């Protein structure tokens, strides 16, 4: 049912993945732990050109992400390839003693005018029981594309923010949070 994206390399500078969600995942989370799709794509050699090994947010190589997360990411991005980082920022503590209450802040530098604004901000967890934590729909009259709140983290993991602009450009950012006592109830 779920299509396994295939990885093919067109050129050393052009790493194309069948599913953009998978591409974003690879870029964001590194490939320390292979997920199902990575295994399928195994024959493709890793790009060696430093320019093609794009600088991304620090990958947390030893972390897994849930199938739930992959699905949620794909549902948001559809066919789009997200831009990593700037002008999107995701603020979270590096260490959360209590996973039940972890403050987050998502912000995008945007003029928030009719022709250039952020439509939606999404917050995702890579290994909570449910991946999509929240979505915030904004309008130019929001004035500023920034939201804050408190989230639950079941365990140490990467948290992902996605911003959707009115020109259909997607921005993505990730932060790793060490969790001492997990939230989300007993598991």
């Amino acid at each position, binding site marked *: 049912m779920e299509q396994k994206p295939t990885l093919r390399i067109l050129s050393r500078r052009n790493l194309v993945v069948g599913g953009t969600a998978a591409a974003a995942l690879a870029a964001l989370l590194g490939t320390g732990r292979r997920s199902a799709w990575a295994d399928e794509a195994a024959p493709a050699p890793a790009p060696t050109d430093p320019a093609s090994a794009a600088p991304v947010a620090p990958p947390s190589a030893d972390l897994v992400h849930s199938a739930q997360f992959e699905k949620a990411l794909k549902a948001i991005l559809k066919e789009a390839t997200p831009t990593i980082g700037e002008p999107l920022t995701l603020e979270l503590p590096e260490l959360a003693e209590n996973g039940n209450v972890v403050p987050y802040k998502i912000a995008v530098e945007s003029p928030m005018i009719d022709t250039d604004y952020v439509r939606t901000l999404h917050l995702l967890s890579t290994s909570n029981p449910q991946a999509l*934590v*929240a979505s*915030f729909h904004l309008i130019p009259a*929001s*004035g500023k594309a*920034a939201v*804050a709140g*408190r989230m*639950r983290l079941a365990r140490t993991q990467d948290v992902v923010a996605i911003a959707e602009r009115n020109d259909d450009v997607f921005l993505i950012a990730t932060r790793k949070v060490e969790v001492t006592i997990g*939230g989300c109830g007993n598991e």
Partner: protein
Amino acid sequence: MTGTTRIKLPEKPAVGEVIEIRALINHVMETGNRKDPEGNVIPRNIIKSLTVTFGSITILKAEFGPGISSNPFVAFHMRVPGPGELVFTWEDDAGQTTVERSPLYVG
């Protein structure tokens, strides 16, 4: 348990100023992942959404999953169009709707 809300608005912002608005509601945000001592799953009941309107404009529509902490709190922004009233509407899984109205005065 459910229903107590707290809204924080700046006192007298200027027209055109971008202000921060904070909204909180007391709610257990039961995830549906927990079990009671007998091992029965405690049914999920979370605040699913918060909608904030100013006149006919929907300033913010937020959708929440169980990954949001109990007593969900949101800080967001608005460019002040003028004096008026902000209406906050929260909805939970049990179908309970909580509405809070806050007048916005301008300086």
